[in-house]
């Protein structure tokens, strides 16, 4: 415990701790909407699509700035979404398969570009490969600041447009009917996803960042039947995962923050699936047992009644 305290007193650690927590919080919140809109895997596609975007942004500018990477990844993400839309519209391929094709295609391109960069003559390419699995410890002050600002912005947008996001997640047709610009809101939600994926990549990596969008949201669904509570819980689970990931990685020797964060989120998921009061496995068993007992009791009562009735008719017959 003492060592944990000294770690938290280290200003560099504090920054990483805060940004990972905020990242988990904002991804958890955005993730709720994408999960309810059945677009969980979209986050994964966007994350993989971000890799070639980041590589090309680096090749063009030669700088490693989070903002430039964000622009590159966002453009790649938009192309990927249009690609998925194009494939599903103009062929008989379903949405999931189309996502698989686009995801792997972009990721392949990203890996090729990454190799090209590493063998090329770019001065400061070192560390770009860290985007694959992320390296929170390698983040510098300006990255942390950008991440924090972006996270706060994401949360603010979700708070202000909660009503709109809720309605387009539940019933987009009705939303269109009352005059909401549904296409715009959907694109905005997609953009928020791209942004949260890109700021997360540095800490968690391209391969795992989608977990921060999916796992906390799914876990939260096990605890509540209300969207507001689900969004808050999901943000909380994400934040706890981020915090736990940073703390564990800083105490144990040489364990990576990103994967630990994802593992923490997965652990919370297992707790939820077991103990969640809504649809949790234990809760389900409990309800089944209670219903069974009630049924048995009423059957016993029925049996007793039948036996009494039978005895009475026998008596009547004897008389």
């Amino acid at each position: 415990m003492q060592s944990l305290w000294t770690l938290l007193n280290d200003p560099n650690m504090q920054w990483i701790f805060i940004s990972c927590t905020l990242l988990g919080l904002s991804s958890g919140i955005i993730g709720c909407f994408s999960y309810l809109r059945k677009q969980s895997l979209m986050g994964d596609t966007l994350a993989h699509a971000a890799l070639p975007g980041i590589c090309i942004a680096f090749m063009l500018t030669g700088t490693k700035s989070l903002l430039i990477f964000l622009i590159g990844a966002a453009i790649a993400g938009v192309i990927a979404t249009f690609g998925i839309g194009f494939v599903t519209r103009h062929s008989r391929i379903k949405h999931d398969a189309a996502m698989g094709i686009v995801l792997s295609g972009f990721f392949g391109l990203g890996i090729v570009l990454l190799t090209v960069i590493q063998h090329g003559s770019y001065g400061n390419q070192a560390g770009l490969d860290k985007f694959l699995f992320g390296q929170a410890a390698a983040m510098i002050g300006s990255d942390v600041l950008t991440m924090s600002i972006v996270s706060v912005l994401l949360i603010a947008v979700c708070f202000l447009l909660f009503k709109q996001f809720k309605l387009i997640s539940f019933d987009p047709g009705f939303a269109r009917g009352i005059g909401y610009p549904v296409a715009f809101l959907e694109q905005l939600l997609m953009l928020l996803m791209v942004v949260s994926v890109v700021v997360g990549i540095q800490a968690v990596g391209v391969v795992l960042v989608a977990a921060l969008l999916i796992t906390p949201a799914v876990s939260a669904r096990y605890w509540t039947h209300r969207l507001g509570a689900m969004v808050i819980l999901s943000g909380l689970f994400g934040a706890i995962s981020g915090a736990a990931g940073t703390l564990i990685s800083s105490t144990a020797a040489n364990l990576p923050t990103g994967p630990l964060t994802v593992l923490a989120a997965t652990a919370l998921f297992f707790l939820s699936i077991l103990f969640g009061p809504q649809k949790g496995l234990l809760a389900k068993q409990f309800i089944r047992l209670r219903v069974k007992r009630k049924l048995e009791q009423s059957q016993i009562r029925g049996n007793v009644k039948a036996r009494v009735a039978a005895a009475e008719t026998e008596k009547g017959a004897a008389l």
Partner: protein
Amino acid sequence: MEQKQRVEAKAPLTIQGLSAAYQKKPVLRNVSFSVQEGELVGVIGPNGAGKSTMMKAALGLIPRLSGEVLVYGKPYKQQRKLVGYVPQRESVDWDFPTNALDVVTMGRYGHLGWFGRPGAKERAIAMESLAKVGMADFATRQISQLSGGQQQRVFLARALAQDASLYFMDEPFAGVDAATEKAIITLLQELKRQGKTVIVVHHDLATVQEYFDSVLLLNVELQAYGPTDEVFTQELLQQTYGGRLAFLDRSRNHSDIFATKG
């Protein structure tokens, strides 16, 4: 002529030359009609006749190829608040984390500003709407734990909460229990008494005469439109349904024979 125009301008709904297509196949061709205020209108036609498509195209939910939609004499886009819509129940995922009251409150979102949040007033209106469809006791029930008929009534209550003058209902009677069917009918009569206009996509030919003032027969093109007793005739139905209605009659006779044998 001038008077006729004035009447037209007042009509709750005027549709002129409406056409729409899914992918490349046109499913609705050049439909024009005008609905009188305070009427219950049944939209009747075989499967794939474009009944739902007509509603969705009129409401701008799917792009239309051509045509004009006027609500009380003005383009639909300016009159959204006057229009309520009850989509098919299957169009949403009922496992969504929300309760019945919350869904009905969504009917008020169009009246709230961009950043406004529903408050006590909105919840009171929603509660009142739930009570009108006999669902007040289920206000806090998670929506996945409602029966199909109850879910349909929640959708109706949401439309009531919109406080519109013109309602579109897409198959509200499909697959509901008797209690819900009765609740819907009572509600339709109540709306009519308040001078509201309701257009209902309907499937069950047996109840058309009982429920609706006017009937619109549709099979890709408009077949007939007018008061129920004038339009809901054997001849016009035959024309709308083509051979299929005859087949229906024959199969019914067939089962009669089977029944007597049994």
